[in-house]
């Protein structure tokens, strides 16, 4: 009996906690005022929406479902549908802050995504709101430099060399992130900052498998304040790799036509050999009939 009472208390406590947590989550999660007013330094374009979608589908769908479909996982507190009105009523800064910092069952994505990647997700979420007009920061008097980027590979030190200019002037302190583009998404190669000569170096593992000439598709992003540039290019900086089909040539797992020769020979020689012997006997039965008269 004593034990039972204890259990009852625990259950009651849990229920209360859940109820409180529920109410809290729905009403009380407010981003700090400063964060709330934060605006995206990037203009939400299709490119950002597309990248945001990939990130969202990898990291958010399992709880929040597909935006606009109301198919989020039933949890307490409910994660909510990012396409829904209540969700969209928040400011860009608030959504950004909540993804970045997390709370309770909502994970903290600060370490998983860089700021620009977080903004991609916000751009994706906003793409479900037809009435949304992006509020851009006041840009009066701010000059946004237009970056030009040049990529090369220094094979002496195995480093990707990124040079950033604006109107032929090298740009220092620009954040650079380089990615290898794969079939199913991009893989971070490394991050760096440009030096006073406008040059950033990113380490490259020379054993990376490239194509037959060692080329690999690289994407480099550069950001500093509102300035932003992106360049995708094939660079010969990986190991030349010849790709073979897993079932190339004659193979036990391939089609009948491509069966190993030793197997075909073994199989058909055995089968025909045995049947030849059997037919020899079956036809030989006539000899038994012929031999009925003693010679």
């Amino acid at each position, binding site marked *: 009996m004593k034990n039972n009472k204890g259990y009852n208390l625990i259950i009651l406590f849990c229920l209360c906690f859940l109820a409180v947590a529920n109410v809290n989550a729905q009403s009380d999660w407010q981003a700090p005022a400063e964060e709330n007013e934060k605006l995206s330094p990037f203009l939400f374009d299709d490119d950002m929406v597309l990248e945001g979608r990939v990130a969202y589908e990898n990291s958010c769908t399992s709880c929040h479902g597909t935006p606009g479909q109301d198919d989020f996982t039933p949890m307490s507190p409910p994660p909510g549908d990012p396409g829904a009105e209540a969700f969209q009523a928040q400011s860009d800064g608030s959504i950004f802050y909540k993804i970045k910092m997390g709370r309770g069952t909502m994970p903290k994505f600060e370490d998983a995504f860089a700021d620009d990647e977080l903004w991609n997700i916000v751009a994706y979420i906003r793409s479900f709101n037809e009435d949304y007009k992006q509020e851009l920061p006041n840009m009066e008097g701010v000059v946004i430099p237009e970056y030009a980027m040049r990529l090369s590979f220094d094979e002496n030190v195995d480093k990707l060399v990124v040079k950033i200019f604006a109107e032929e002037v090298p740009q220092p302190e620009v954040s650079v992130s380089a990615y290898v583009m794969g079939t199913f998404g991009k893989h971070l190669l490394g991050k760096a900052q440009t030096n006073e000569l406008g040059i950033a170096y990113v380490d490259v593992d020379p054993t990376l498998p490239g194509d037959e000439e060692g080329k690999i598709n690289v994407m480099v992003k550069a950001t500093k304040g509102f300035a932003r540039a992106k360049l995708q290019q094939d660079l010969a900086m990986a190991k030349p790799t010849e790709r073979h089909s897993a079932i190339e040539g004659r193979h*036990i*797992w*391939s*089609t*009948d036509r491509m*069966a*190993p020769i030793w*197997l*075909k020979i073994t*199989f*058909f020689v055995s*089968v025909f050999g*045995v*049947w030849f*012997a*059997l037919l*020899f*006997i*079956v036809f*030989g*039965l006539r*000899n*038994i*009939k012929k*031999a*009925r*008269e*003693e*010679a």
Partner: protein
Amino acid sequence: MNETITKGHFSEEQIDKDLLKNVNWGGKFKLWMGFLTVSLIICLYYYYQQLQNGLGVTGLHDYVSWGIYISNFVFFVATSLIGMLVSSVLGMMKVSWVRPVARIAELVAVAFAMVAGLIIITDMGRPDRLLNVFIHGRVQSPIVWDIAVVVTYVVISALLLYIPMLPDIALCRDKLNNVPKWQQKMYKSLSLGWNSTAKQFRLMNRYTRILLVLIIPIALSIHTVTSWLFAMTLRSGWDSPIFGPYFVSGAFVAGCAAVIIAMFFFRNNYKLKEYITADHFDRMGKLLVLVALVYVYFNINEIIVPGYKANTADAKHVHEMLYGHDSVMFWLVQLGGLVVPFLLILFKPMRKPLPLTIISLVILAGAWFKRVLIVVPTQLAPYYPIQNVPEGWTGYSPTTPEVAITVASFILVLMIITVLAKLFPVVPIWEVKEDMNHKNN
């Protein structure tokens, strides 16, 4: 003391009379065949249902797609292997006591091998597409190898039953005047004008010898290939390099038991006590002990090697067998169906006809369930967990149609054996005579 051959008290006429006695269509036979036919028709109704509604009427599903049909197939192939052991291996070693029971072993082999092929068809949802296996089969597939060897084995076994029987068919042709006309005609054409000339005997012996040699690799490969259907996959419980010899040794256990049961039946119903003697049972019992010992040895290997290493999937499989979900059946089959029976047969009184037959029945039943244990549990433990599927798919239990169709296969075997044993003498008459003459001289 060799008492396996009749003691020489009988004249040749007496032997002819005794051994040809069973070739008739008596009332008992008609009653038995009637019973079998009615049962078969009932079972075939269920097969009609399966043809109409597909494999949905069975307990098979996406995970367990090989249920008791395939277990039964493995069992049938296994049982049919005894023909090779008795008539070929022992026959060529000139082990003379097997000669009176060799034909019974061959009957068992032919009947089980013939029906084994049919069982495969019952496991197909679209049997009308059977031909595709031949047209589009890949030579790399063990299924194609299996079809090739099963068909070959049926033909070899049938020839091995038929060719050494030629003198006896001729005897039927000459002595049986009161059988129906079609039967006389059949004996006439089947006997190939047998006239017991020296050349005919020479040819017969030559062909028989070729077959006896051929059947050894074919019989070994039929069951090895059957085991490869499983062993060539990566699934825990099947992924085992000793599956071939493991299956072959198990086959001899099932086959020996089946032959002992058939021997007992023929001995009592056909009044052949003087020809199939208690000594035959004693020796078959000893043979059963030998093959059972080999099988026990393989069973120990099959469990202790993966169990000792305990890599995750295999450990789970072994655990399920030893203590888990399948443990009751496992221990019943291993102890009740194999170890205890063979320990019992070690004692001479247990090798008397009746006790040995009862023990053989238990062993045969155990052998059948052993095949289920080999086939089903592995499929219920895939590497990817079974999830997001109907609840019934986490287990397997055969449905009534499935059981009925499986029973039908046994009925077919009994029918084939019954009819063949009524058309031809079950004990080779000319060999018994030859042995006796040899002894008397």
